[in-house]
């Protein structure tokens, strides 16, 4: 049994892929807490599509992929923030317009230069086989950077997430906080894109956070739980992906979705039981 579990680790691609999946899962779980609590669950979906546009442009312009796509994602996130802050447009609508336009730019360029269409399959659906040691180092670096930003800005970020308007009155530099958060989010998406793919990244951002929310009423515990659930899903998703021969990104997300469904069922049953107990005593 142990041998069966350890067998995939003899392959370098699997070791690299699992390390990247655990880091990306934890990273998405960490940043996903703020995404969910800000009511911007759709941003992961939208921004990853926007970054896809940036990746295509980077390819055409022969820019560094991480730099080009990262900058594109960062600008898209900033535009969304500023649109919501300065106009009557809600977050979901702003995300819809800006990120879809960016994705459409990528699709337009691909359709114009059909010769490199296949190169972007990995960006769309994730490709764990292609994860190199250098990729793992980049994901680890981004994870450290984002965790560092969240650690240092923990208090103002919490206040801004809870109530941005009031935080500003108390002297919190909410514009700076939002800008740094947009940078951290873009970096997290870029780092996770190769493992999970544009189409599945949104789930990895949202599912661990909402599962953790079901389990606790404390913000600190929600952060820890969501990060741990994301990282664990990365590990077990990879293991299942190897043994069941299913695409890694899809398996990670399916594992997270199963955990969420189980948590929802258990917490609902607990609530029902406590209500019944209350009625019995009354």
């Amino acid at each position, binding site marked *: 049994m142990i041998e069966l579990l350890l067998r995939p680790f003899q392959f370098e691609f699997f070791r690299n892929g699992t390390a990247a999946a655990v880091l990306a899962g934890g990273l998405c779980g960490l940043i996903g807490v703020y995404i969910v609590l800000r009511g911007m669950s759709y941003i992961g979906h939208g921004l990853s599509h926007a970054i896809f546009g940036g990746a295509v442009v980077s390819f055409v312009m022969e820019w560094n992929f991480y730099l080009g796509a990262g900058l594109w994602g960062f600008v898209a996130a900033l535009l969304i923030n500023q649109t919501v802050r300065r106009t009557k447009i809600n977050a979901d609508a702003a995300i819809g317009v800006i990120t879809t336009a960016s994705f459409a730019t990528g699709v337009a360029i691909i359709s114009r230069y059909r010769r490199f269409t296949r190169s972007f399959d990995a960006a769309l659906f994730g490709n764990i086989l292609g994860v190199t040691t250098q990729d793992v180092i980049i994901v680890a670096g981004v994870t450290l950077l984002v965790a560092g930003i969240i650690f240092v800005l923990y208090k103002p970020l919490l206040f801004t997430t809870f109530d941005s308007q009031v935080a500003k*009155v108390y002297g919190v530099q909410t514009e700076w906080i939002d800008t740094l958060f947009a940078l951290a989010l873009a970096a997290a998406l870029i780092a996770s894109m190769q493992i999970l793919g544009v189409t599945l990244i949104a789930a990895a951002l949202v599912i661990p956070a909402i599962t953790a929310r079901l389990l606790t009423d404390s913000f600190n515990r929600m952060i820890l739980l969501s990060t741990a659930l994301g990282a664990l899903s990365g590990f077990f998703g990879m293991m299942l992906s190897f043994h069941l021969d299913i695409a890694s990104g899809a398996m990670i997300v399916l594992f997270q979705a199963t955990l969420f469904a189980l948590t929802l069922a258990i917490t609902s049953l607990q609530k029902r039981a406590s209500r019944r107990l209350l009625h019995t005593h009354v």
Partner: protein
Amino acid sequence: MKPIIELDNVTFGYGATPVLEHISMHLHPGQFAALVGPSGAGKTTLLKLALGILTPGEGQIRLDGRARDEHSRPTISYVPQLESVDWNFPVTVEQVVFMGLARSSGVWPWPSKLERDRLQSVLDQLEIGHLARRHIRDLSGGQQQRVFLARALITEPDLLALDEPTAGIDVRTAENVLHMLGHLSQHGMTILLTTHDLNAAAAHVPWVICLKNKIVAQGAPEDVFTAENLNKTYDGDMLVIRQDGMLFVQQKPHPHGYHDLLPNPVPGEIPAQKQA
């Protein structure tokens, strides 16, 4: 003495619709003032302009004699309307109160010993010390109001602004909150609140401002709460009773109209008179 907050001919509107026009007012350190007026009169908007959440279309706002966006400014705390709070947000009482220190405390995510002591002191002062670890949703309306008051007080502000601090809480708690605010103003804190409760304002707040998109009147409640001023503010006649140095206002505008009764000839009876 220099005013701590000064609005000079401020005008503001959402889009083309003006909400506030030509507002000029100022508050000195230690002053305790209430903004009163009907819904839509611009009370919350005026509060948000004063706090820098909104920017005026015209006019100037100065804090402690300086432009509002200058870095050196008095410490300001704000207690928003309870209905604007996200009660499902996963935070405990102490986490909310510590938010007040988000700007001033160090980079560590956890509070220092000094900050913990300050938290306990403020919570005890407001009689919610035993609720520190509770989720904010699991409290009564009065307790929730005190949590946000605690967040405001932990910063020891020069200016405290409160939006409807007595809404949704019982009469006794409202009395306690207003009594405590009066006490804080006597110790030098400037307080500006909005309220719909004219009688509570008359009993506890020494300076009231009647607002109906413009300032209708401002001054001591006994001078400002007249039938004429309230008529202009609420678009309906309101009964004002003065007796033994106390002032009562019938809160709902009367459709047939009342005169300002001074004094009430028979205690306990309200002789309604139709206005011509």
